[in-house]
């Protein structure tokens, strides 16, 4: 099914270890993957399975202990600060915990202005910038006039998370690593926001990579689902294959644990 598509991000034997000796944790354990351009990918797994660690390696925020990461078919080279900056123009992220993602000393405007500057719009007239920011906010059901001049801690958790997503609409990266992007957003806005993200993907050919616990969401949005267990991908395939007909007991257990509303939810299994 991936014939003719180019992988935009691949990994071979990517490994990350934390600590030494007795305290050593292998957070990501030699994973191989090819994420194809334009495809929607979900990575699902228990907490502590290494999803965030993998995302940080893909973003170049931490170095892999071992293994190679390939970006657009070539081995990734982000040695210098300048190259990193260039790399981050094409790959962006939404972090897991919105409460700790913002510098509490900076106003919200500066978060969005940084994005405009990053896209080379630093010299745009002020009205144009405000227009851009207002538009980005409207994609995530926020009103810029209500946010301007506020500090992040004056927003609710969900509003902070939406603002994080609004950045993406300004940055328009090729690859988006979204770590639990909608965990604090109500079901209804979640749908709206996912839909607009999908529109953005269609417009600019972005490759979104969702990292999530929400199996319903993974199933709803993604083309390919990767299941991660203790630093390894144990199962992968199309959403229908993996989520409706899981092969591995680990995946089966995860899916079984999803809270049910149409049938009895068996609490005795944990």
């Amino acid at each position, binding site marked *: 099914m991936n014939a003719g598509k180019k992988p935009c991000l691949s990994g071979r034997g990517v490994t990350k270890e934390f600590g030494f000796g007795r305290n050593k944790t292998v957070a990501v354990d030699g994973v191989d993957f090819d994420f194809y351009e334009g495809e929607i990918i979900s990575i699902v797994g228990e907490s502590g399975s290494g999803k965030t660690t993998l995302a940080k390696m893909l*973003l170049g925020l931490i170095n892999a202990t071992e293994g190679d990461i390939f970006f657009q078919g070539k081995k990734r080279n982000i040695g210098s600060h300048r190259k990193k900056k260039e790399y*981050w123009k094409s790959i*962006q992220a939404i972090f897991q915990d919105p409460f*700790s993602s913002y510098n509490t000393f900076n106003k919200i405007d500066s*978060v969005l202005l940084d994005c405009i500057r*990053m896209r080379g719009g630093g010299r745009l007239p002020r009205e144009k910038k405000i227009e851009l920011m207002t538009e980005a906010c409207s994609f995530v059901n926020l009103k810029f006039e209500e946010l301007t001049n506020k500090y992040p801690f004056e927003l609710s958790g969900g509003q902070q998370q939406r603002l994080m997503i609004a950045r993406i609409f300004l940055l328009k990266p090729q690859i988006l690593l979204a770590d639990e992007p909608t965990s604090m957003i109500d079901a209804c806005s979640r749908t709206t926001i996912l839909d607009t993200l999908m529109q953005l993907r269609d417009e600019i050919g972005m490759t979104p990579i969702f990292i999530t616990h929400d199996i319903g969401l993974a199933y709803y949005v993604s083309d390919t689902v990767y299941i991660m267990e203790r630093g390894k991908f144990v199962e992968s395939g199309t959403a229908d294959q993996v989520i409706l007909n899981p092969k591995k007991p680990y995946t089966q257990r995860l899916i079984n644990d999803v809270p049910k509303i149409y049938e009895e939810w068996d609490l005795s299994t944990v």
Partner: protein
Amino acid sequence: MKHTIRQVFRSGKFVVGFSIFMGILLIVTFYPLIIRDAPLKIIGQGTFFAPGIYVNVYDSMGSPHYTILLDDAAAKRIADKLDDDDRQAIKEWLVAAGISEDAIEIENTESLLDLWVNNFDPTTRIPGMTNADRNYYIRLNTALDGLLSTEGAIVASVNPETGALEEKGVIRQTDYVNVNQVPNVRVLPLGTDNFGRDVLTELVQATAVSLRIGIVAGLIATFIGLVLGLVSGYIGGLVDDVIMFITNLFIVIPSFVLLILISFSIGQEQRGAFTIAVVIGFTSWVWTARAVRSQVISLRNRDHVNLSKLSGHSIAHIIAFDILPYIASYVVMALILQISSGILAEAGLSILGLGPRTTDVPTLGLMMNWAMIYQAHILGKWWAYFPVIIVIALIAFSMNLMNTGLDQVFNPALRD
């Protein structure tokens, strides 16, 4: 920000510490504006004048005299002149002259003098008394006679032409002057020191100088520690290794030893207060650097720093805007501690005689040093050193209080 400051001022500990410190600061600023004496001016010819009000005797003769009749004035005067040794000697003589020991009350000046006036006879020979002793008693008797007389004293001056004494006036025993009308009265609340300098004036300036030394030293130490800590914590790798190596060197050699060595090698004459402050600053940044570094290491992997990276900010920008504000409260607390330990370090150095040169300005340490050299503590001249200790303790105490207060506000244990 405003809210945090309000919270800081709600912390009882901080407020107490802050008030003490501000009090000291106010005194230090306003005292010199009122008392305009040079603090190191020697005013007293002699050492260690006790605290008190000093009234000019010459002026008091010239000021209006008032007659006040007080019954116990004479008794007090005599009591003041008769010291314990004299009383003991009188008792011995009376006992030897056959007065019963029970009748002699050594503390009761009046009855003792009565006995003496009625019984003393210079011609009485007492067995075992040397000639010197006899002369002493005769002298004592003459002195007491003078005291007991109710005559005033005549003040005379020498006529420059004739060389004869001319009577200027009589001072009677019942004459008083109003202190307010005497043009020259000097209050020495803490007396004078061994050089005859007013201790209070000296102490106020010493406090000011010591605070300045502490602040300069604290600023230097905090600045160096902050920069090194930020750089080594954030950049890590080889830079971190080098900085940590230097830091560890400084830890192996205790900074006070280093301080002594540097201070010693500079030489007494080159050591001004500012030099000492700089030296203290340069030797005490170590723990600030380590503490800042460990804070930075825990901050540098936070998501807000990652977000800043992803937004294309430079390392300098990230350090300045994403790391520094988060440790600012911590740095303020470190600065306060550094100031107070800088003051103590200066005191320590000066006590060892390695402080700033003694000719320009006093410092708290130098005052302690002088008091020690001139043995104020052995001679019981408490005013020369005790107030200094109190001031040092107050400064250290107030700064530590402020620090704990800040700590409670900035690092609350899991809020609820």
